[in-house]
C-alpha cells in the first residue's frame, strides 16, 4: 500500500503574543514543530505499512525550513519526504492548500491512501483533508480511530463525538486521524541517523501541474481582515461573605432568586 501522510509545521506553543503598539501577531522567532495530530497520522500509516507492506511518503507545504519536521517524520520511520515550497503558495487558505497538496499526491502517483491529522493545532480547521478528497475525487473518513486494511478497501471507525460510525472505504481514499487512534512512536536513534541520509524532495510550483488561478492569495476565497486578542469580558464579581457558612447561605438565597432551587 502506498500511503502519503500530509503534515504541517505549527508553532511550538499556542501562547502567541500581540505587539502592544501595532496589535499585530508576533510570530517571529518561534520555532516550529510537527502538528501533534499529524504524528498520529504518521503512526497510523506506519502500522498499516507494517501490517500489509508498502511505503509511507510524507508531504508538507511551507517554507524550506519545513524540511525539519519532514526529517522528524522520517526519523519515526517514514520512507520518503516531499516538500512543496514556493512563493506562489504564500497566503493560501484551506481551499488552495488542499488543491496544491492534492496535485502533489497525483504527481507522487499510485497513492492508495492519503492520511492527515484531524486538524492543525494552530488554525484548527480540519478542512484540508476533505478538500483534498474532493480534488482527488476520493471518498473520505474523518476523525478516524481505527483503520483496518481489508483487501482493496479499508474499514474505518470514526469517532464523531456523539456517534461512532464504521465505514467501508474503497481505495484510494483520504482519512484524517484522531489522537485516540494510537500513541505515536518516538523517533529511534537509528532512524534519526537514517533520516539525514534521505533526500527531502523539494517541489516548486513549476514542478507540479497547477492552475495558477488556484494558488496563493489569488486562489484563496477567504480573507483574514482582522486579527486581535480575545476581548476579556468581565462579570460583576460581587463578593460573598468571607465566612464559608455565611457565604453558602447567601449563595442559596441567590440561587432561589434565580429559580435554581
Amino acid at each position, binding site marked *: 500500500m502506498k500511503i502519503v501522510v500530509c503534515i504541517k509545521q505549527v508553532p511550538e506553543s499556542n501562547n502567541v503574543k500581540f505587539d502592544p503598539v501595532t496589535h499585530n501577531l508576533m510570530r517571529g522567532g518561534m520555532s516550529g514543530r510537527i502538528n501533534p495530530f499529524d504524528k498520529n497520522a504518521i503512526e497510523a500509516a506506519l502500522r498499516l505499512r507494517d501490517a500489509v507492506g508498502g511505503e509511507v511518503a510524507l508531504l508538507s507545504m511551507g517554507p524550506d525550513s519545513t524540511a525539519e519536521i519532514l*526529517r522528524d517524520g522520517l*526519523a519515526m520511520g517514514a520512507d520518503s519526504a516531499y516538500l512543496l515550497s514556493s512563493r506562489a503558495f504564500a497566503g493560501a487558505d484551506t481551499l488552495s492548500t488542499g488543491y496544491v497538496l492534492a496535485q502533489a499526491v497525483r504527481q507522487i502517483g499510485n497513492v492508495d491512501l492519503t492520511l492527515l491529522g484531524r486538524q492543525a493545532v494552530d488554525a484548527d480547521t480540519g478542512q484540508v483533508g476533505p478538500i483534498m478528497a474532493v480534488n482527488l475525487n476520493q471518498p473520505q473518513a474523518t476523525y478516524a480511530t481505527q483503520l483496518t486494511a481489508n483487501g482493496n478497501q479499508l474499514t474505518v471507525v470514526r469517532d464523531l463525538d456523539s456517534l461512532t460510525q464504521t465505514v467501508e472505504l474503497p481505495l484510494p481514499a483520504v482519512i484524517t486521524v484522531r489522537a485516540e487512534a494510537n500513541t505515536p*512512536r*518516538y523517533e529511534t*536513534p*537509528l532512524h*534519526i*541517523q537514517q533520516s539525514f541520509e534521505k533526500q527531502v524532495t523539494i517541489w516548486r510550483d513549476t514542478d507540479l501541474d497547477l492552475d495558477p488561478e488556484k494558488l496563493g492569495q489569488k486562489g484563496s476565497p477567504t480573507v483574514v481582515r482582522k486579527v486581535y486578542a480575545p476581548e476579556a469580558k468581565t462579570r460583576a464579581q460581587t463578593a460573598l461573605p468571607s465566612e464559608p457558612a455565611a457565604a453558602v447561605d447567601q449563595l442559596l438565597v441567590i440561587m432561589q432568586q434565580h429559580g435554581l432551587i
Partner: protein
Amino acid sequence: MAKQWTPQEQMLLRMTSEFTANEIAPLDLQIDHAGRYPDGLFEQVVATGFLSVMLPHEFGGAGFGPEVTAEVVRRVAEGNASMAATLEGHYKTVYQMLKYGTPALQAKYFPTAGQRIFGFGMTEPTGGSNPMSIRTTAVRQGSDWVLNGNKIMITNGGLAEVYCVLAKTGPQELSVFVVDQDMPGFAFGKRENFIGLRGTPVGEIFMNDVRVSDDYLLGKVGQGGEIGDSAHDDARILMGAVLTGIMDHALGLATSYAKERKAGSTPIGELGSIQRKLADIAMGRETTRLLYQNAAALHAAGQPYSEEATMAKAYGSRTAVAACDDALQVFGGYGYSRDYPLAHLIADARALEIAEGTVEKMRAAIAAAELAK
C-alpha cells in the same frame, strides 16, 4: 566551550528528553518504591532503540559518538537515575566488546545488542581490591575454554543476557570471556537489595563448566586487567553523566520548591541560607558536567581519558551526595519523606561512591597518575 551538537545529535537529544519526561520521569518514585521497573517500561526503552545508540552502523546500531551518548545518559538520569545506570552498564560492556572482541564474537552478539542488555562481571563474593584474588577460572580443554566460578554485583545482572566475565587463566594471569544465559552451565543467582538505584537490577551469575571457544576470549590471554580498567574508564564517564543528571534532578526540584514555598510572605528562594545551597548544588553539577564531558571528548578524539574519567566519578559522586543532601534540606521535612524523591536521590548518588571502583581506589589511581608525570 559548550559542545555544538550536530542536527542528528540534536534530534536524538530532543527525543531523549521527550521520552524521559513522558515515559520515565513520571515513574521515578514508583521505581524507587517498587525496587524494579514497572512492566513494559524497560521494553519500551529497548523498542525505542536506546540500547543501540552507540553501537556502530555496521552492526545495525545508530553509531552515535561517546559525547552525545553520555549526554543521553545524563538526560535519562534527570528523570530516573536507575534507568540511566542500566544504560551505562550496557554501553560500557558493548564498548569493550567493540574494542577487544573478535570479528566472530561481534558478528554473533552485536546484531542483538540493540534488543538485549549486555553486562560486565568482575566482582566476586570473596572480593578484595586485588583482581588476582578472584576465583573464577578459565581452563583450556582441547581448543575450548571451560569456565567455573561466580560473579556478583553485576549491573543489570539478571536483566542482561550476555556477560563479559573476568577469569583467571593462570596463577597471575587475567583474561575476559563472553558468556550468555543460553550456554549450558550458566545460571543466575540472587539480586541485591540496595538502598539506591533501586530500579537497576544488580545480581549474580554462576558458571558451572561453561564451555566456550577462542572466539569468546576478549582480547588476548592475559589482557584481562587492561580490559577491566578500560571498562572502568568507560563506565566512569557515563557515571559522571548519571551523577550530573541526578544533580540536575535535585536542583530542578529545589529551585521550584524555593520559588513556591513561602516563609511568611517571602519565597524561601529569597533567603540567603537557601540561595547558598542552590548555588552549591549548581556549582557541583556544573563541575561534574565539565569533568565527564572532557573525558568523553578525549575518548571521542582517541586520546587517553582514564584519569579524567576517574576524576569525573570520584569528584562527582561525593559532590552529588552532598548536593542531594542540600536539596533535601531545602525541602525541610518534606525532603525527608519517601513521598519525595530527595531521599532516593541521595542513595542513588551514594552508589557511585562504590561501584566501578571506590572513591578511595580512584584517588589512589589519580595520585599515581600524577606522581608518574
